[in-house]
């Protein structure tokens, strides 16, 4: 699965338009739809489906950033999100008063981001000691170790039961766990993360990272510090994952080892691969498909006479099909379909029906 042909399109100085003129029309349509969704959608759609999609998409986005631009498929992103979520629960308020410190939100949130970034940087520094396929194994091992650690440690992580009643702060008099505020909060954070990834991918750092992905030896010969770029990518990706993790804790109002277990870590990979790991939009599409399948699988499965618990089977088979037949995900399918249409169009115009 070579992820090599994503090159940023440089715009000529001569025909450079204003930044908002360069955004194609479908994006404006999507933005309008997302902004006005609360007018038509009910709270279940806003809170459960869209909120979860944005959260999963952001965590998937951090994986996409590492895998698509850095060539490092990290199964660690759910763990990074979990570290941030746990920090919010431990430093802030929760139902477990014996462990939670109950600090103010303006200490808790930066601290959560910082601790998660530190964790991601150290783990990333370990993971980049080796290359290629080892990354996936090392990150999986770290993720599993953290999961077992949170499950057996009661002094810091409150073991098996974790933390419940972890609620967002009541800022500006708004209850951020109400469906509409939570929807907008997650939408804004997801959009910011998306924009950040697009921006970084075109920045000198992002271009150097893609160079490191394609040919580390040549980049090293050109004087780039390959290891530093990779570790920095882990640190940067941790921001998106942390934002997703904190939102996830607020949405569920709880966090437990099960939230960050191996199945969850693999779900993030599934989301990113199914959506497509070449473009930042992929994880969000993958997350939407995943959430829709998860939420509606009881109905679909019941229709075919299966038990509702076979949801994982559908996800697994779908994932296998995507990996076997379209390694660049749903977005890859879409790209190929468009390319074929474009090839056929002139023929169609020439009357060859």
């Amino acid at each position, binding site marked *: 699965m070579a992820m090599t042909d994503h090159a940023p399109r440089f715009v000529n100085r001569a025909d450079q338009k204003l930044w908002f003129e360069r955004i194609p029309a479908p994006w404006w349509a999507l933005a309008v739809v997302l902004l006005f969704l609360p007018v038509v959608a009910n709270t279940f759609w806003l809170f459960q489906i869209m909120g979860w999609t944005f959260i999963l998409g952001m965590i998937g986005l951090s994986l996409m950033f590492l895998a698509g631009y850095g060539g490092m498929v990290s199964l660690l992103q759910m763990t990074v999100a979990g570290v941030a979520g746990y920090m919010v629960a431990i430093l802030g308020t929760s139902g477990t008063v014996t462990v939670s410190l109950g600090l103010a939100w303006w200490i808790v949130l930066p601290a959560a981001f910082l601790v998660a970034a530190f964790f991601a940087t150290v783990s990333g520094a370990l993971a980049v000691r080796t290359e290629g396929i080892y990354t996936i194994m090392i990150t999986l091992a770290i993720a599993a170790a953290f999961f077992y650690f949170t499950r057996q440690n009661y002094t810091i992580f409150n073991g098996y039961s974790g933390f419940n009643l972890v609620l967002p702060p009541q800022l500006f008099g708004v209850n951020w766990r109400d469906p509409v505020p939570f929807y907008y909060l997650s939408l804004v954070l997801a959009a910011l993360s998306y924009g950040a990834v697009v921006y970084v991918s075109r920045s000198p750092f992002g271009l150097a990272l893609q160079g490191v992905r394609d040919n580390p030896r040549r980049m090293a010969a050109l004087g780039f510090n390959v290891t530093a770029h990779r570790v920095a990518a882990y640190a940067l990706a941790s921001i998106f994952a942390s934002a997703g993790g904190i939102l996830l804790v607020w949405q569920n109002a709880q966090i437990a080892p099960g939230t960050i277990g191996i199945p969850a870590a693999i779900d993030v990979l599934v989301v990113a691969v199914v959506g497509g790991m070449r473009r930042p939009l992929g994880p969000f599409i993958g997350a939407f498909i995943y959430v829709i399948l998860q939420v509606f699988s009881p109905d679909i499965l019941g229709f075919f006479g299966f038990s509702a618990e076979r949801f*994982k089977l559908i996800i697994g088979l779908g994932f*296998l099909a995507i990996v076997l037949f379209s390694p660049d995900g749903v977005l890859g399918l879409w790209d190929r379909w468009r390319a074929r249409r474009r090839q056929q169009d002139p023929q169609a115009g020439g009357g060859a029906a």
Partner: protein
Amino acid sequence: MDDIIKRNPLRSLVIAILIAVFLWLVFSPWPPELVARWGRKQIFLNALLGGITLGALYFLVAAGFTLIFGLMRVVNLAHGSLFLLGGYLGYEISSATGSWFIAFPVVFVVVGLLGLLMQRFIFAKMEGEELRQTLVSIGISIVLADLMLWLWGGQSYSILAPGFLTGPMELPIINSINASTGATNWLRYPAVRVWILIAAIVIGVAMWLVLNRTALGMLIRAGVDDREMLAASGVRIQLVFLAVFGFGAGLAGMAGIIGGTFQSLSPGEDTRFLLASLVVVIVGGMGSIIGAAIGALIIGVTEQMGFVYAPTYSVVFTFLIMAAVLAFRPQGLLGSRR
């Protein structure tokens, strides 16, 4: 040996002292001061032996994993699922036929066949695309895990060991000396664990012999070093791949029976043993059987010792060992740098 000692006199001395202390801890009765600080000797010995037998089980799972990776560069993340599948099948067969032994060849063949099919129809189609193979193996593990949950449910199973393996046996290690009578208490330990350890050693030695003393082993070692060259010299390398994949999968399946006998089988065990294999081969070095044995021993003993002496932090020790190996020797203790 002499040469090494001459070149590193200090390090050799430290190692010799450590070994002597360790042997003394194991074989002599503990003085009361030590018991007061560390607890009874039996706890230490049980943790040590438990760690060694757990290491034996880890070795059986990880040996196939490391061979498959070393030869084919396939990171088979469905390896833990093969372990669990082997365990469930072994449970069904041994409870249906009443024979514990008959389960081993049957499970070896069935799970090995599944491995052959995976290699022949999936992994061989995407040779060289390491990431895609890994993703496919993740997909297979998700599907297998859910199928097994469907068929066997969420409860835990345990396989009954045959009569002569149940109950304890005495080992020639002093447990304690009764202060009033002066009688020696020898350590009693579950017989099944001792036999598992012996079986793992036999299998490990057999694998080493096959790898180092037979024509097939020569092909496999040559393939680990340079498979393109081996293929170019006329060897039908796909057959070698099939043999290794089938053997590794079958071994994982048999390990599942053993795991089900002295621990239990439930959903989630597949990830636990996948993680164990990952850490074992990261520590021991990819593609090295001896490395897998050493790694399995280290991880097994660390896990059990941590479990006994620092229960809430035992996973951290395992992780720290992995981190230390990655930091100072990224290719693993016995791995070769490629």
